[in-house]
């Protein structure tokens, strides 16, 4: 249960992709997600797939990990495929089952859209598989830095995110502890009717909330005691370093965008 719940299924490694600056990875994935929607013919989809496959291969993450990340959306893809297969009425009729007929355009459209989905999820999964959540936070904070001028509390948001990430395991431990304590008092979490289950969940949530508030209060006090007074005048320990590889990968995705723009029909 615990490995499933942790946001970001980071797989430790030292590949080129792992070592990319989180800002570069965020930008690459962001651009990729945008240009996926340009593709509309075989050459463009082929290029996009090639990029994603090379990217995944360079990460040296075992295929099984990637597949596990893709599994939850398999049904969505299948559903989209079927929907397009029967709903799009373009081109020649290929096959007929009773009142339903499958057109050539339907097959093409269905495959394209499913592939688009698959590529989107693949690339975002690659980001979470090769980047620790705290690196993602650092990257987001740095990329959103310019927004500080517009009084967007970027530092505070990033700190909030970092602290939430740090407390996930703590709160999961706590949840387990409360569940055991309530089970010892006769609460049944595994079975029973719907209303009984709801009651069981309330008996878990109430103590969890109360203790979380207490934690938050104590943490705020501890932070203040350690001299925290907002983002101003603060230095940063975690540092991001932009390397040649980052520029190269960013150039690659830019090239991909240009090619896609030229080849789309």
């Amino acid at each position, binding site marked *: 249960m615990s490995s499933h719940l942790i946001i970001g299924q980071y797989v430790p490694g030292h590949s080129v992709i792992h070592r990319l600056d989180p800002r570069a990875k965020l930008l690459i994935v962001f651009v990729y997600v945008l240009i996926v929607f340009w593709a509309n013919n075989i050459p463009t989809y082929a290029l996009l797939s090639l990029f994603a496959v090379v990217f995944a291969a360079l990460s040296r993450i075992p295929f099984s990990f990637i597949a596990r990340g893709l599994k939850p959306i398999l049904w969505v893809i299948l559903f989209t495929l079927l929907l397009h297969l029967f709903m799009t009425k373009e081109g020649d009729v290929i096959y007929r089952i009773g009142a339903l007929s499958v057109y050539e355009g339907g097959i093409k459209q269905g495959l394209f859209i499913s592939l688009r989905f698959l590529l989107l999820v693949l690339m975002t999964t690659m980001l979470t598989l090769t980047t620790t959540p*705290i690196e993602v936070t650092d990257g987001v904070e740095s990329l959103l830095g310019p927004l500080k001028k517009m009084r967007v509390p970027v530092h505070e948001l990033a700190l909030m995110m970092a602290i939430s*990430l740090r407390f996930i395991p703590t709160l999961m431990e706590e949840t387990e502890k409360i569940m055991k304590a309530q089970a010892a008092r006769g609460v049944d979490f595994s079975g029973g009717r719907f209303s009984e289950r709801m009651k069981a969940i309330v008996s878990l949530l109430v103590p969890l909330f109360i203790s979380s508030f207490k934690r938050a209060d*104590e943490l705020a006090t501890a*932070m*203040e*005691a*350690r001299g925290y*007074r907002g983002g101003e005048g603060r*230095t940063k320990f975690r540092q991001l370093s932009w390397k040649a590889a980052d520029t190269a990968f960013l150039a690659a995705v830019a090239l991909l965008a240009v090619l896609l723009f030229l080849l789309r029909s």
Partner: protein
Amino acid sequence: MNWTMPFFCLLFIGRICNAATQGETIMAEPILSIEGVSFRYPNQSDYAVQNVSFIAERGEWLAIVGHNGSGKSTIARMLIGLLRPERGAIRLFGCLLDDTTVWEVRRRVGMVFQNPDNQFVGATVEDDIAFALENNGIPRAEMVERIREAIRQVHMEPFLHHEPHRLSGGQKQRVAIAGILALRPDMIILDEATSMLDPRGREEVLETVRRLNCQQRITVLSITHDLEEAAKADRIIVMNKGEVMAEGAPEHIFRLGSKLERIGLDLPFAVKMGSRLREQGIPLRAGYFTTEELVEELWTLYSKK
């Protein structure tokens, strides 16, 4: 007002304080003095702390003991400016604690809280130690140096990149101490910092603090329920219902005996044993605090016969 203003004020005040103390440097000046401090929580009629005064000398180990709700934590919070006294004055390093000095005080006085989990801010040990350094605007190159030094002082080098959930309670508390040490503090306040730890974790933490107290002359203010732990302090302050009930060296305090038990404190086993033995007419010298010391006394007494 710009946020740097307090710093300038501080520098200025620092000068004056230094100048003022220059003449009497030979006399041991208390690092901390509280004079007639009272405090009430908002919307409360009773005082949580009432007319409390005491001092701490540089390099001293001072213990504050008292029953639940006797105002110990409230005092600790006032010392680093988390709460503001209603009456009275707090002086640290010769300067009055107020809005202009509070940040400097928080740099020089570190506090370890009771719950090891709820004071761990960073994603990993090194991030957590860096937190206070970041807050104080220490340049990154120096941070790395200071983190290495601090982690070595608490003997946690192998855990530098560990996440908090992979550490024991005692280890987390030692990380908290390292976070304080990185700021090169003059004083550490432990607010029941060992009460949630198992005996081994407790001993590790106390050993670490004891070493810092001896070697670096860092003043320690230890708030505890555990009289056994307090027995090792240089001086003990006993709190009762927000007031100071007694103050003095451990042997002096333990002579109060049943008076301490009446306000809800549990005397160490060796102290209780010692007084029982004396009642039975065994000629023990006064004041035994640890079990080892009692055993030592008993066998030497036996072999003298």
